[in-house]
């Protein structure tokens, strides 16, 4: 009986540990997908892929101190 008791105890503890681990890992995934990031804007921020400022590139007003347009890039 005591060995049965030990087996039940160990099995229950293992189940509890597995559930807690699964719960915490699913929360981590949710946070990763819901946190907006600086690079998720679809634009050309950083990295040199955008149009240069100071009258560079397409000479948009927004490269010369004008209002920002609605594009997904510079």
């Amino acid at each position: 009986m005591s060995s049965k008791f030990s087996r039940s105890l160990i099995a229950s503890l293992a189940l509890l540990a597995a559930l807690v681990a699964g719960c915490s890992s699913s929360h981590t995934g949710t946070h990763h997908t819901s946190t907006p990031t600086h690079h998720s804007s679809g634009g050309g921020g950083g990295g040199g892929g955008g149009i240069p400022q100071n009258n560079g590139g397409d000479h948009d007003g927004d490269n010369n101190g004008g209002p920002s347009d609605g594009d997904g890039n510079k």
Partner: protein
Amino acid sequence: MPRFGTAAATVTGALAAVVLAAVAGCQSSAPAAAHSGERPALPKVPPVHLLSAERAPAGWHYLFLPGGGAVLAFPPSMHRVQGDHGTVSVAEFGASGSYLLYLNATPKQGHETLRDWPQFRINHVADEEHTTPRMLAASQGVPFLGGTGTCVIDTYVTKVKSNHYTEVACYVQGKTSASVIIGAAPTADWARASGPLKRAVAAYRVR
């Protein structure tokens, strides 16, 4: 020996209760947005107060987006200015050459959606101007002529010349296309400029 059986049953039952409580706690703490079909909560800012969608006043001018996905209406004091290929921009300038009013329409180019537009726009302006824009208002489900939009009002400072602008920026989904309309003015003039800019937004037609 029967005492062992009783003890085992008691401990197992207690552990089962703990397991069930842990599972219940895990499920209840999951964010509401994870449930399918729910809109994520907008940032905690007031709603955007726009005019009802309606045709532009008599005397206003119109410019079609190349491809015909949208029509930008603008007051006669504004005239077309240079912008990106495939977009239309109009502006009114002061005597010193500074912007008084600015309107721009651009076809969808990135991964923006009706749901994430306010934060998308803030992130993009931050990328572009290397400043931290401040979101003042945001609304989803804004009616447009021919479609529905999500709008945000924010302020920012340009990297070049450190100009302060306030803008209303809307992502608008029509039946066959999606586009962005921007109305901007110097922040110091926003109280006066927001009237015609919001009127132009209300007259923006998408297809």
